[in-house]
């Protein structure tokens, strides 16, 4: 039985790390982008961003002022036992979000959608958001993602049902058109980690796209060569456009393109995009049945795919 105080503290530390520390894979992608950038101003911008992100870890302040939507992904072992059960896990996550907000690791960003009322702690109807995946074992893996407003509000998240007849060409055209529109003037804060969901109902495709954007290790490939090729082709195509950092020109428009898919009704192929902004915040921790907490480098969300 994993004690409440252990998982609550692990939740808090995971939020703090996600909000204030750049992950290794994103850092590596930035270093590569800096190396290949030829536009002088864009290179300065990438360097300044990386420098600021590295300072955030030291100063324990947020990587970006917009700390976005608090989103949790729980990968749960079938035999995982939590004190208070999963209802208490979610309560603890809410308490941890409120505490992180009070400490200034998160900004009080979540408000009432119609009145704009600010509870001041990022807690409200259906927020934070929780997603579960069940696997064998007795552990739990916690991932926290802070999905920035720019990346989510300005057209980075889109969907279209593409006819089976239009195939990969239709999907790729939809993705390129969508990305160009959403990255104009830097709206989605490129260079982006672009997630793409193909198949399932529209909401399944949208969730896959968000998970691909927020949880895949940057630089990883889909294990199925057919999907890996789409990732590679789109990565090259999007980086040839010259959108650059914050849309003001440059050689890197995407840090990664990650595709996930689901079987579907082929009357129409749901195709969804989700962009994660350049700070691509997330952190993961694992708690074993004996209560040992360990930091994870990457979420491992797709590990058993």
């Amino acid at each position, binding site marked *: 039985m994993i004690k409440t105080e252990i998982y609550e503290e692990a939740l808090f530390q995971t939020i703090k790390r996600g909000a204030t520390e750049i992950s290794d894979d994103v850092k590596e992608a930035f270093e590569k982008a800096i190396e290949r950038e030829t536009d002088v*101003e*864009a290179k*300065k*911008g*990438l360097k*300044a*961003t990386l*420098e*600021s992100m590295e*300072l*955030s870890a030291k100063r324990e*302040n*947020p*990587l*970006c*002022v*917009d*700390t976005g939507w608090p989103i949790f992904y729980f990968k749960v072992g079938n035999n995982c036992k939590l004190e208070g059960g999963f209802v208490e896990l979610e309560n603890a996550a809410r308490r941890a979000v409120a505490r992180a907000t009070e*400490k*200034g690791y998160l*900004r*009080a*960003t979540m408000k009432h959608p119609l009145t*704009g009322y*600010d509870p*001041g702690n990022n807690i409200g109807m259906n927020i934070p958001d929780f997603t579960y995946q069940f696997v064998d074992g007795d552990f739990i893996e916690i991932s926290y993602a802070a999905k920035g*407003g*720019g990346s989510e509000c*300005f057209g980075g998240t889109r969907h*279209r*049902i593409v*006819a089976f007849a*239009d195939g990969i*060409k*239709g999907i*790729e*055209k939809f993705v*390129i058109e969508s990305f*160009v529109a959403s990255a*104009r*003037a*830097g*709206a989605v*804060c490129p260079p982006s980690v672009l997630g793409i969901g193909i198949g399932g109902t529209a909401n399944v495709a949208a969730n896959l796209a968000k998970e691909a954007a927020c949880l895949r290790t940057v630089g990883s490939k889909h294990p199925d060569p057919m999907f890996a090729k789409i990732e590679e*082709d789109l990565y090259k*195509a*999007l980086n*040839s*456009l*010259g*959108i650059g*950092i*914050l*849309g*003001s*020109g440059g050689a890197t428009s995407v840090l990664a393109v990650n595709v996930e898919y689901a079987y579907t009704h082929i009357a*129409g192929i749901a195709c969804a995009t989700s962009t994660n*902004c*350049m*700070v691509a915040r997330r952190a993961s921790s694992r708690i074993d049945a004996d209560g040992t907490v360990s930091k994870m480098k990457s979420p491992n969300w797709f590990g058993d795919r």
Partner: protein
Amino acid sequence: MSVYHLNGPLTDEDVKKLKLGDTVYISGECFTCRSRLQKYIFDEKHTLPFSTEGRNILIHNGPIIVKENGKWKLMSFMPTSSIRFEKWGAKSVDEWNLKMIVGKTTMGASTMAMMKEKKCVHVSPRSVSPNLWIDSIEVQDVHLYDELGRIEAAWFFKVKDLGPFIVDIDAEGNNYFDKLDGEIAERKQKALKDLGIEEDFEFTKLY
């Protein structure tokens, strides 16, 4: 492209010389603004509780500020997207006599027209680097904190060489991103062709 270090309050002369793509650093007194402030003033018809004379630089931003030992402490700062305030953009420039708006992205046609008329520019960041900015910002005061909440309130900042920002709307109503749009559209045609997607490709209409 030139680099300017400007001191607020800004004059017409200060902003008229700025060209698209120029780099600016700003010093002086500014205030922050987000949707709830503009809604409160322009839609709900409240009076702005301070004067913008001597403080004609507006920053679209919701900072993270905490109180430490009775003093405000700025934890993080990054200009937020300006385009979402387009509905109130022209009114803000006009009624608040703004000379510069700092924000991510850019503004739309109606604000640009007002900026041309009133001589105002929009500048935007080219990085997400809060830690390189917060040391240049002193938090002076806050207005409408109780009414609008911590991040939507109007914060008064005194800034010193805050930047770099690029000029993306000049005082003649031209937009840096309009120029880039054309270049990107051309490259997009080539990218689609390289992927084997014909120019006349049309989506099958399912709905």
